[in-house]
């Protein structure tokens, strides 16, 4: 699979490392060169320094067939704008925006933007643990 990851933060970098190791073709974009330090030494994918909201930086990657794009900078609104823009302009196979605001994440699903909400996932996990500890009492 060919994957583009916009935002090489704590989550983005680990995702990039793992997909690369699993043999996928990975392109990582971040506006800060220093962010690529988080990638492992073995990382063999492409690194692009640039702004994910500017077509010039994403076009070279997305002009080729791309199976999935993750918009996962630390800013919800940027991720939502990237996701919608890229869908309109380049039509990659799938686009997923990481959105920390739980209400926004739900709202944009109605607009047809696929979102993943880390906040919801943590809450779900914590509630499950609560359930387990209750059962063990």
């Amino acid at each position: 699979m060919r994957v583009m990851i916009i935002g090489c933060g704590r989550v983005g970098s680990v995702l990039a490392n793992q997909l690369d190791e699993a043999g996928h073709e990975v392109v990582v974009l971040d506006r800060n060169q220093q962010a690529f330090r988080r990638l492992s030494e073995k990382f063999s994918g492409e690194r692009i320094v640039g702004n994910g909201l500017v077509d010039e930086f994403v076009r070279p990657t997305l002009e080729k067939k791309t199976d999935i794009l993750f918009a996962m900078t630390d800013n919800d609104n940027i991720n939502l704008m990237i996701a919608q823009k890229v869908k309109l302009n380049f039509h990659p196979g799938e686009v997923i925006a990481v959105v920390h605001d739980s209400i926004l994440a739900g709202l944009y699903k109605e607009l047809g933007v696929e979102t993943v909400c880390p906040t919801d996932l943590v809450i779900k996990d914590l509630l499950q643990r609560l359930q387990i500890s209750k059962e063990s009492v």
Partner: protein
Amino acid sequence: MYIIVVGAGKVGYHLARLLMTESHHDHEVMLIEKDRAKVNLLSVEFHDAIMEGDGSTVEALKEAGANRADVVVATTGNDEDNLVICQIVKLMFLRPRTIARVNNPRNEELFAGLGVDASVSGTKLINAIIHEQVRAGDMMIPLLTLKAGDIEIVEVQLTRSSHIVRKKIKDLTLPTGSIFIAVIRGEEVIIPYGETEFQPEDKVLALVKRESEQALRELL
């Protein structure tokens, strides 16, 4: 009208102030700003008409009463925030019209495609005004110089403000030593005659003697 303005930067602040002081209108205004220091500073002037909050969240917009607003204007310096503000309003509150400030003029089309009712780009506005101000005669481009510079073929791009637009050649007094040789309208090339009427987007080719160039410039 009830108008919500998001972002108390220069644009948002002055817009809100203008709306509130327009005495002939009975506008109710709410300014939403996420920087607490700015809110504190401006609350002296705005009293209850300013609130602290992130305007790109459902909570803040709800608190501001977006469900009964007539217009929501997103004026922050970040296009991604302005887009999300307008989209939330459209999805959650239905009623208000949304207006976004577009910081990067290239985003204007995108915003329209993503459901924002209207967008305003400062760069585009200023650019449009400049083009209105520039007279067609000032945009005369020499194409070819003949007879060691005595005669020139020039090209002039007409605009809405050109003097000869909507006029027929037979009604114009061309300076001696000049003649229109072609009018380029889109893909079409017109060999002009008396009945030819100039349109705002026309490109006009003219043959002109050096000494008549200034006069032709003034005519256009």
